[in-house]
């Protein structure tokens, strides 16, 4: 068992607070992804869990034991680094065995563990090579293998795929997910790529400037973002944001157009300044709508199976529309857009917090910004 819990964890470098009190509970066997823009503190948080970075405040507990003052090696964790950090002067075999030798594991046991890990990761052919003779994907496997042989309680991944090319990244994504199913260990994975987060995670923690914006299942984050930041960060292409003001049941946009919002979906009062959020899938060109949105098409991307229309509203806000299949729209055209208001989101313009009335049970617990 390996439950990890962070209790009001803080980190400051001098006067600068980079982690401003993080509370998280990660249960045994969960694949948890920390995602956020660069500089949000996600790698720092991971290094604090690993023990490579000291903790300025709060507690890190593994299975209920406070590990703040236990050195990195003794926390029973293993880490895969962004640059792989293989030992360049050692062969693959020595890279894998170095940690076990330090743990004073008997020789034959080391041999057994290494061979099992090598077989699982398909690097058994490369055992006598040096890291510089390996391709990026192979290095990645060795780096993962080095973590696997240690049989850690928790795996930590620090943007492990960012140095790989796009195709290999998709492959390795699948392999890490497979590894997680095979080993069943707790894994914590840091990335700035929300696609990686969505595809791999059991739970996602979205971080921004040292704080957790929302923590929950990928689809809950997608369907029910706690605030405008999470809404914009999760999902590709990005959610469209349109400024407006409430006028009874109508949302009056700044250019005078209005959109009718479903009754009872949002907690709003008359005259409130809000931001409307619509996923690119939930908006489509229509002809016959009472309350539509006028926009000019800037460009169209036809991918064959999917089409992306990039438009600008009369007010200058950019709007992305995703349509399945192919479309006969071209740049320069004027569109009247129909919004699927049942799937729309509304955020307070000041605080960015969602105004959705009924929130998913899981998402509710998340701290609001």
């Amino acid at each position, binding site marked *: 068992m390996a439950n990890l819990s962070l209790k009001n964890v803080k980190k400051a470098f001098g006067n600068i607070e980079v982690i401003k009190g993080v509370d998280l509970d990660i249960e045994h066997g969960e694949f948890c992804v920390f995602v956020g823009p660069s500089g949000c503190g996600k790698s720092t948080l991971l290094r604090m869990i690993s023990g*490579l970075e000291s903790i300025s405040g709060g507690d890190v507990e593994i299975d209920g034991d406070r590990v703040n003052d236990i050195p990195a090696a003794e926390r029973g964790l293993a880490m895969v680094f962004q640059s792989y950090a293989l030992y360049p002067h050692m062969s693959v075999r020595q890279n894998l065995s170095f940690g076990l030798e330090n743990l004073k594991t008997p020789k034959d046991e080391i041999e057994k563990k290494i061979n099992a890990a090598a077989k699982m990761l398909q690097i058994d052919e490369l055992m006598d090579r040096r890291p510089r003779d390996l391709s990026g994907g192979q290095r990645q496997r060795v780096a993962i293998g080095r973590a696997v042989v240690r049989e850690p309680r928790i795996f930590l991944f620090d943007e492990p795929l960012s140095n790989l090319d796009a195709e290999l990244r998709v492959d390795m994504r699948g392999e890490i997910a497979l590894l997680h199913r095979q080993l069943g260990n707790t894994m914590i994975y840091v990335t700035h790529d929300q696609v990686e987060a969505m595809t791999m995670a059991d739970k996602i923690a979205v971080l921004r400037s040292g704080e957790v914006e929302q923590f929950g299942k990928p689809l809950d984050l997608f369907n029910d973002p706690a605030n405008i930041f999470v809404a914009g960060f999760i999902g590709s292409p990005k959610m469209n944001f349109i400024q407006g003001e409430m006028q009874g049941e109508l949302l009056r946009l700044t250019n005078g157009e209005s959109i009718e919002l479903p009754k009872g979906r949002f907690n709003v009062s008359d005259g409130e300044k809000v931001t409307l959020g619509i996923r690119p899938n939930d908006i489509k060109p229509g002809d016959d709508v009472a309350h539509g949105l006028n926009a000019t098409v800037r460009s169209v991307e036809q991918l064959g199976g999917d089409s992306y229309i990039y438009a600008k509203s009369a007010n200058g806000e950019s709007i992305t529309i995703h349509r399945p299949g192919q479309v006969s729209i071209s740049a320069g055209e004027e569109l009247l857009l129909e919004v699927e208001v049942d799937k729309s989101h509304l955020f307070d313009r000041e605080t960015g917090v969602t105004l959705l009335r009924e929130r998913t049970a899981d998402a509710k617990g998340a701290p609001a910004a």
Partner: protein
Amino acid sequence: MASVVKFLTGTRGKGRLHWTDWFTYAYLLGGILLMFGPVLWLVASSFKTDAELDKFPPRFLPHAALTVELEGHDKPLPLFKVTKGDLAGEQVAQVRRIGLTSQVVRLSEPDKKIKISVKDREPMEKISIATKNYTDLFRKFDFLQFFWNSTFITVAATIIMLIVNSMAAFALSKYQFKGRATVMAIVIGVLMVPQTVVLVPLFIVTKELGMLDTLWGVIIPGAATPTGIFLLRQYMLTIPDEILDAARMDKASEWKIYWRIILPLSAPAIAVLAILAIMWRWNDFLWPLIVLSRTENFTLQLALNSFQGEMATQWSNLLAMTVLTLLPVALVFAFLQKYIATGIASTGGK
């Protein structure tokens, strides 16, 4: 082999020589002469006898008089060719020389002495190597003792220096601690202090520690050099911190990280420093001269110096010993020079 010849005879002009070709080859040949001339002259001279060394004008190759053994004479007699007079064109052996006349005998008539003027004869010589210069070193002087002293000082000092400097460099490059910048500034500052300035205080410290006139007195004071620390630190800065973090996650102690990760990864820089240290220590003269006073503690450099007396200098032995002193450093350099190139290349490379 063909490519080597092609490289060495490469020209810029095609078919005929461009003026830059003339210039380049002249410059290169001049350089070779300047660099190797003195060394070749030294080696050639080290095989000359004392008499030959005193000769004017000097000749490049060592010569010795041709001699012949004749009946009725105990010692081999030097051969001469007569240029003037009755015996002109004949080969004679000189029995002895008195002032400006020389008593010679014909080879066919070893008993009949003839007097001729020294001007009328020319010595007959052959190229001959005076290996005695070298054997004397072992017979008459304690060359092996000097050699051992020099070797011991060089090896011990180099090893101690590499260990001390690499530890300091590791700390200064990979650990964050208060005053790190200050320490580094001091180290770099020390680079600007000439050794002669600290000679007297260093001597006093060495004396107080009771290390005067011992080999350790030469070894210890130079154990940490700012140059070495700076060189290694700059190289170690290029080793990614993530590798150290990975080792820490692998439960390696800091000592093990130094020993198993940092040292092997800094090998090129350490090789460069090792070569430099060996050359510095082997060629060091001033400090050993100050510390060492008994002959049995002398290094080769000091022994060489002692050949140069106030009244007379034994040039033949001095030259032979100089050659032997040069050899080890030349060999070290020949075998390790490729590391200097790769070391410098990879320190700046990344």
